[in-house]
């Protein structure tokens, strides 16, 4: 039996990638406002911005994933968990 591959930098790496991507695409957002319970739209990101943020996060983490996988995630916390789980694969 093979042990599952350990996630690279853990949740903290995912969180850093999300913070950096949000800062790049919607620069006016204060870091303190980027909390797990918020959706990206709550930060003023429109649908085009949300695409850019997700693609930027995927690039930063080196993860390949269809955008459709992100359609139903309710908030940044769920986004973090989803990416953390994907990094383990």
């Amino acid at each position, binding site marked *: 039996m093979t042990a599952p591959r350990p996630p690279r930098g853990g949740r903290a790496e995912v969180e850093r990638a999300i913070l950096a991507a949000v800062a790049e695409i919607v620069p006016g957002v204060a870091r303190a406002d980027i909390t797990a319970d918020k959706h990206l739209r709550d930060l003023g990101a429109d*649908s085009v911005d*949300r695409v850019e943020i997700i693609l930027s996060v995927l690039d930063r983490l080196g993860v390949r994933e269809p*955008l459709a996988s992100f359609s139903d995630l309710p908030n940044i916390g769920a986004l973090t968990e989803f990416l953390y789980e994907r990094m383990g694969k």
Partner: protein
Amino acid sequence: MSTAPIGIEALNVYCGLARIPVAALFAGRGLDPARLPNLMMDQKSVALPCEDPVTNAVNAAKPLLDRLDPVERASIELLVTSTESGVDYSKSVASYVHEQLGLSRRCRTIEVKQACYAATAGVQLAAAYVASGLSPGAKALVIGTDVSVVDERAEYTEPAMGTGAAAMLVGDRPRVLALDQGAFGLHSYETFDSARPGPTFDVADSDRSLFAYIDCLRGAFRDYADRVEEAGFAETFDLLAMHTPFAGIVRAAHRAVMRDVRPAPSRQEVETDFARRLEPSLRYPRLVGNLCSGSVYLALASLLDAADVEGGARVGLYSYGSGCASEFFSGVVDGESAAAVREARIGDHLAARFEVDFAEYTELLAGNARCLVPERDRPAEAARCAPLLSRFGIERELLVFNGTKGYHRQYEWTTAGAA
């Protein structure tokens, strides 16, 4: 299968008689103007109460047919209307269009539906029929035609929804676009990103739709590259034309696909590439709004009117329809293609649309809102529309919707722009 050239012989669009600046609609609805830069839309065509999917289709195709000789007209033996604005569950839009265009009775007449993708399915199936050689010299007329049924409930989608039609004559003398036969890529699966469950309203999930549009572009291009040796998104196509629900999605999709290019281009290189290969295709869509399945062909017309193709150019085309189905395909254009589209004077017709303010827009929207709703006997209203028709800046022959008798839709030819 024949290897003789096959493709689009003639192309024309009809994008209505009226328009509203997108900024005026934003102001009227109280939408956030900070969203305008990502929307990238300038104007929106507005339908009149006497316009519907049938009149849009006929008004797009009629000028194109008027330039054919009687033998060429008689060789149209397939008429396909593609629409998500059907007027009946059984009787096709094509049946009315066939009558109003005076096409030969030796003609297959059908309507197809797959949201904004279906016109490309029509073009490709028609091209395959022509290429089969089963009926030498046969031509097909494919018309993507729609009306917008969205209002303030659609929020930021409303300013980007257009109205109108694109008509493509498919045959073996492809003056406008010679298809690269066998060079196509497909990507389709079931999703509920947007739909029209009834004749008066759309439902849409903007994230799901935008994500599917981009996933499908990547997937369809991967399939294209599997079929076409050494094809690369960055280098194979001199120009690109894509389905344009709003121009900002085309920019976002281009950026997304350019992330797959190796070596990775810089952000500046991506922006320069977008300006060079895609902006010519966006000029008309930005002035009209989403034409649904006709949209990619409005983008092609825009490209041919705006880009320099005198030396010949390979164009990559991307068609996407919610639900969803998509295709990436390609063809070759040249100076003759540009000359053919120039004959349609599309830019002049767009400029001739009369401008309405927000108050008049809401009146027209209400007047057009029930054009897809079945009514046994709807009063004639072509005469009431006459003052509106006269405000169009170019005199032209026009078909208008004139009510129903026992559910049978009535149409009338008139003259617009005669003031």
